[in-house]
């Protein structure tokens, strides 16, 4: 459903992405992993249209979307959960879910989505998305805002980033249930072994290139022998 051809992205004479070729099939749970600075988040942003590659093609369900702006890619069925979700003064969680949903939703439906991402709905639905929310809370709201879209392809950029260990233990359960919440294909940028464990396909990126790609056993084969951080080349 998603095909990347020869994607290159260079900034300040540094090749961030170097000729990436990748195909992602429908209804798969795909994890892109790799060391910090390897180009994972840039790749995710390029798929959504937030960053523009210097060259290459992106085919989504056979259609070339390289020239489409972010909002038109969203309308075609691509959703994106940010690594650092933004906050909005005055906009409530319910307002955001209404903006997110393609169909009109009522409070009951919004509460249902919030419950699925592990938030006590009645405490959050009317809350402003401002700085009073903790890292874990805003991350869940971000997940709810993409889950409500029922997109064909949903991208999560490091959902574990910025969350304390205790919140993450709870959040990981949400991702383990991800197939129930998010329909279609899921693409997650993650370092977390527990997320890698539930992937259909794992893609390892190093220095802007695809180092390894395959099912989790093929890519994670040596993880049991070495800690994951060593396997990924993280010091």
């Amino acid at each position, binding site marked *: 459903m998603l095909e990347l051809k020869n994607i290159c992205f260079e900034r300040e004479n540094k090749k961030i992405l170097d000729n990436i070729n990748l195909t992602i099939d429908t209804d798969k749970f795909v994890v892109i992993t790799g060391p910090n600075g390897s180009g994972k988040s840039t790749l995710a942003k390029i798929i*959504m249209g*937030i960053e523009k590659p210097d060259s290459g093609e992106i085919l989504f369900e056979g259609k070339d979307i390289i020239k489409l*702006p*972010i*909002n038109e890619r*969203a*309308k075609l069925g691509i*959703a*994106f959960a*940010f690594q*650092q*979700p*933004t906050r*909005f*003064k*005055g*906009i*409530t969680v319910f*307002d955001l879910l209404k*903006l*997110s949903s*393609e169909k009109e939703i009522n409070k009951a439906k919004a509460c249902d989505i919030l419950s699925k991402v592990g938030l006590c709905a009645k405490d959050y639905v009317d809350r402003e998305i401002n700085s009073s929310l903790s890292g874990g809370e805003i991350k869940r709201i971000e997940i709810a*805002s993409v889950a409500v*879209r029922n997109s064909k392809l949903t991208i999560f950029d490091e959902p574990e980033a910025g969350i304390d260990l205790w919140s993450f233990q709870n959040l990981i359960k949400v991702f383990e249930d991800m197939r129930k919440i998010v329909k279609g294909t899921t693409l997650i940028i993650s370092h977390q072994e527990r997320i890698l464990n539930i992937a259909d396909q794992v893609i390892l990126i190093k220095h802007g290139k695809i180092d390894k790609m395959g099912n989790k056993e093929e890519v994670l084969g040596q993880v049991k022998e070495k800690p994951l951080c060593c396997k990924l080349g993280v010091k």
Partner: protein
Amino acid sequence: MNNIDINLLKKITETKDGKFEGAYNIRKNGQGIERKTTGNIEIITKKEVSGIDIFVKPNTKFEFIHIPVIITESGINDLVYNDFYIGENSKVTIIAGCGIHNDHHKDSRHDGIHRFYLEKGAKVKYIEKHYGEGSGTGKRILNPVTEVYLKENSLLEMESVQIKGVDSTIRTTKGVLDKNASFIVTEKIMTHGIQFAKTKFEVELNGENSSTKVTSRSVATEDSKQEFCSKVIGNTKCFGHVECDAIIKDNAKVIAIPEIIANNVEANLIHEAAIGKIAGEQLIKLMTLGLTEKEAEEAIINGFLK
């Protein structure tokens, strides 16, 4: 009342057809045109100056008072004094506001001076909306003055909104608070074109455990200019919090001048001010939800001023 009158009333009050519940006094082009009182609320015309005195009996509960002003003639310069005397332990909602329709070249101006005297334990919600419309080159000018005198345990919550069409406004709000009294102010302003809006806010916290909370949210667009000056004086054990947030666009200018004065070691006063353009990541987030950049900007501003 004609259609223009009813339309202006709709913009500044909650009415659907120009009719009001509870007590009311409608002023048009400098004259009172309709009035209704209730058993608990008396409205009397002032003798020395233009305006009215409103008396609310003690223990009046859940009543409404509407005092809208509409100006439809160009060149009107209307100065009015409205004084509210709110009896002990009353709980009322007061809805004021001014709508100006100016299709001509002369300036139309309304300066409403509202003074509130709340007795012990009284609670008032005061809503004030300002709106201007019309195709003329004459300016639509509003300079409201609100003075609030709060006795022990009383509370006044003030909501002030100016969203459209007012060319120039200087809004002055003063408060003097006794023991345990509370003054909560929420202000929302949006300016366009070459409009000018200035807020002057000054409150004296004189009584022990008195408190004030001021939240100002404004959007300045095109070549408009806004100023926000606030002064909170804590003379005893008290709490004051002023928060001024502004979104700025195009060539607009916003000035925020905070002043907090603590005259007592137990005074706890905070001023927060932030001015900036709409954050790029906010626009991008909403665009990932399918909104165009323009729609995203509107959603952010609507939420901010909601």
